[in-house]
């Protein structure tokens, strides 16, 4: 059997839970919906993300199937139940492609492409117009003084490399982020460092973060530890296995890849990772899900994070964001309050 390729469209409340599927041998979480056979819908999709969800759904190639996490009635292990449902649905749709999930949006271009200008460019002079429904990129100042074209993108809420539910509007020039704005009130606490977080959740964060850094095989290991720690019975080998995973991670060059990325108050992404890993190790050693210590640089607000990653390359920005275990539900609720 080859693993079923799955793309997770998760609301902020279930995103961590869904990462646990990485532990499953017959399921593989893919970074893009184009690679997936099954779309896993987990958690609450807010109304504002509805259109984005429909687009993600239509990006899956046929034959495709949709599995909804919250509809699955499970016994004691919901992840197993979801995984077997995914495998079953994938088998069925592969056997009978006519049952493939139909498109949710009309398959048409957002705009007529031929405009009104003398060459069909749709605007005055050379510039202007909206070819294919997208405004032409306009130049703007940048850090190199070259004033190159500016690409405006909206990232999220279902982007594979970012936490579920996180939405950010970025302006890129080349690979450099010129501005970024998270879709929440600027003063909202983004990461609540002093909150006690269950160790399983921390391990799930680790699993996703390893995946983003290109260590998918290690991500599987972390997700398996997360699943074991979530079980109620005491597992004495857990601390030892985590130590072994951490030891092996030392050989991957992660440290040099993360060092001096996303510096803030003298702490870089590697320092934040270390704080997370220390917290996990401490919890597994018996201490009760200890909060990440203050030297893990948390908490941080969305505005502070935006300021931190402005001017970084997109890759470093993603690495930096992932370095925080962002509490998206907390962020959105406080955003409503303020």
């Amino acid at each position, binding site marked *: 059997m080859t693993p079923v390729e799955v793309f997770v469209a998760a609301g902020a409340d279930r995103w961590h839970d869904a990462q646990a599927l990485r532990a499953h041998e017959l399921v593989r979480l893919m970074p893009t919906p184009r690679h997936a056979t099954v779309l896993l819908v987990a958690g609450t999709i807010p109304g504002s993300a509805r259109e984005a969800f429909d687009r993600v759904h239509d990006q899956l190639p046929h034959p495709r199937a949709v599995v909804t996490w919250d509809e699955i009635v499970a016994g004691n292990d919901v992840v197993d139940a979801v995984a077997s449902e995914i495998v079953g649905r994938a088998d069925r749709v592969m056997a009978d492609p006519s049952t493939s999930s139909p498109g949710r949006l009309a398959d048409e271009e957002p705009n007529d492409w031929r405009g009104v200008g003398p060459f069909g460019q749709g605007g005055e002079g050379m510039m202007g117009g909206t070819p294919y429904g997208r405004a032409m990129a306009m*130049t703007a100042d940048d850090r190199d*003084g*070259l*004033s190159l074209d500016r690409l405006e993108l909206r990232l999220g809420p279902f982007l594979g490399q970012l936490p579920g539910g996180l939405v950010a509007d970025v302006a890129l020039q080349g690979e450099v982020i010129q501005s970024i704005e998270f879709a929440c009130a600027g003063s909202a606490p983004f990461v609540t460092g002093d909150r006690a977080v269950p160790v399983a959740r921390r391990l799930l964060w680790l699993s996703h973060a390893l995946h983003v850094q290109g260590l998918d095989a290690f991500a599987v290991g972390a997700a398996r530890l997360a699943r074991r720690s979530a079980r109620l019975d005491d597992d004495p080998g857990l601390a030892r296995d985590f130590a072994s995973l951490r030891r092996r991670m030392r050989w991957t060059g992660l440290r040099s890849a993360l060092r001096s990325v996303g510096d803030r108050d003298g702490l870089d992404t590697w320092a934040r990772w270390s704080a997370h890993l220390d917290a996990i190790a401490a919890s597994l050693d018996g201490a009760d899900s200890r909060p990440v210590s203050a030297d893990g640089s948390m908490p941080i607000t969305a505005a502070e994070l935006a300021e931190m990653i402005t001017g970084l390359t997109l890759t470093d920005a993603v690495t930096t964001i992932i370095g925080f275990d962002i509490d998206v539900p907390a962020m959105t609720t406080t955003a409503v309050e303020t």
Partner: protein
Amino acid sequence: MNLMTVLLVAAALIGVGVWGALAQQTFVMLMMGIEMMLNGVILAVAGFWAFAGAGLPKGQVLVILSMAVMAIELAIGFALVTAVYRARQADMTEGIGSLKG
């Protein structure tokens, strides 16, 4: 394949290059036109070397010289384009035409 046919192909390449360099408005496309001319030159030189130069290695050195010219043209050209763009946001020849004199 003889000297005449090789030179005719080179002539076509040079002609295309002249046309492109004169007709295109953007600097980078203009440089492409120049590159195309040099392409024809390289072919012509190699043709002479192969059919009329008795295979003297100096002919090959001339080809290498043409290649170096191309590399220099490209490097300096792009540096100038960058400098002009930095100062003017101009990527077209007309963009800096008003400053002649």
